[in-house]
């Protein structure tokens, strides 16, 4: 048993007898009314998605999961393969478990997998991942009122993000995986 302070991406909850994993959530406090967490969940071992709204402070039937260190290897089709760093076995995770996070994956990075029984039900990325910049259009000194102060760059895993105009090809930069935003040069 837990409560709404346990809500995060990857938390496993039991709802009306079935296990679900939280894939995203939003906190809302109307001020003149009840504060709540609006959660998107996915049924474990199924495709069923649903939304549940928990009152802030409410008891939630959270389910303890095992955490295991994984290293990302490669993807093929809808499957993402990781190496379990304790057993050295390869484990496959389907695209829907990763959701939008798959865009941050890069060969060799370490992640944490949440295991429910034998199945990996959620992947937790490092908060920051370093990438090499492969494409960065040259900075154009333009009219600053045009709002032209950032530019789109492409990283070595294909991810495209907005970055400051001074970033050049070949540099190492850091991306914040919670916001998907540029988080500075890797050396800073």
């Amino acid at each position, binding site marked *: 048993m837990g409560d709404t302070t346990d809500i995060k991406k990857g938390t496993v909850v039991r709802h*009306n007898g079935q296990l679900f994993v939280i894939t995203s959530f*939003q*906190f*809302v*406090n*109307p*001020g*003149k*009314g*009840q*504060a*709540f967490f*609006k959660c998107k969940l996915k049924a474990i071992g199924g495709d069923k998605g649903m*939304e*549940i*709204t928990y*009152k*802030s*402070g409410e*008891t939630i039937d959270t389910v303890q999961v095992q955490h295991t260190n994984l290293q990302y290897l490669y993807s093929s089709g809808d499957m993402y393969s990781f190496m379990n760093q304790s057993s050295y076995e390869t484990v496959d995770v389907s695209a829907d478990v990763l959701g939008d996070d798959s865009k941050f994956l890069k060969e060799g990075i370490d992640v944490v997998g949440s295991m429910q029984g034998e199945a990996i039900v959620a992947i937790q990325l490092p908060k920051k991942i370093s990438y090499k910049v492969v494409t960065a259009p040259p900075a154009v000194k333009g009219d600053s*009122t*045009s*709002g*032209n*102060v*950032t530019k789109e760059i492409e990283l070595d895993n294909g991810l495209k993000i*907005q970055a*400051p105009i001074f970033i050049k090809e070949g540099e190492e930069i850091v991306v914040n995986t919670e*916001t998907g*935003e*540029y*988080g*500075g*040069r890797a050396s*800073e």
Partner: protein
Amino acid sequence: MNHTFHISKNKSNLELRSHIVRCIREFFWDKNFLEVETPLIVRYPGQEPNLSPMKVDIRDELGKIFRGHLHTSPEYTMKKMLASGFKNIFSICKCFRNEESFGGLHNPEFTMVEWYRVSSNIFEIMDDVEQVFAFVAEEMQTVISNLKLENNYQLPITNYQNSFVRMQMRDLWKEVLDVDLDDYLNRDKMFELCVQKKYNPKEDESYEELFYRVFLNEMEPKLREIGNIIVYHYPAQMAALSKLYDDDPRYAERFEVYVDGMEIANAFSELTDAGEQLKRLQDEQEERRRLGKEIYDIDMEFIESLRNMPECAGIALGVDRFVQVLLGCKNINDVLVLPMSKLFSS
């Protein structure tokens, strides 16, 4: 470099925000409203059971400490001004609420526009809401064309004329759940409904908590579907600082404005009965005690002021969210110079 990057990345949003705030002021000036400034530090914060005010300690020149709070809204002070003879007034100010998320729909420090009309009711305030949307969106067309933004930038929605649906809470319940809200105005009936819906409510939950379980799980998707909607006539248990209908005291003269499921404003025909207001604040103290929250003394100056307050209606509208809606920004952080998440990120 994170701070300057955040500001640079959102530079056009921030520039447009500045113009939106100017247009809001122009809207109220045109209608002969007076802009007022209230203290951000108050002695007695609001009592709303779900709000957590921020404490602030102030020392005088002798070092004596006074416990104050950053206000959660300018409501009490503005009502004291109305009681002192001010007529239609508005305030654009920062408000502060603790224990809220850093980003998404909230930032612990945010901007509110709050306005009051004397000798008025919620229906005139509804007109204001619809007109301020239409006025600001229209003015922003000119602003945007003068700014010559990149890629022929346009607001996602340029015309808000007649874009709001007005719906009574009772009709919303009828439409979504096919039940008559009149039958669910007491706690036990609402509890039954929550059990039936398998929300697993606890035995000691208040009517308001139970109501919100149903509202958030069942109505909210409908609000998203409708888009721009004003929901009015709340059950009396959720009157807060509003007055009840003379001809049907089971309901309160309160409305909320939702855009795509996001609440952006809350309005009341204001309660002017000092005795009733005192009782409600005492009930809220009790509720805070039950929820294990800090309990604050009641601002008796506020209670007393209600004896002289004219009949009026008022509303608080979140400016950051208004900007989000106009510019189509999903995250409040994208319309703030430096949101809390940037101030405290490593």
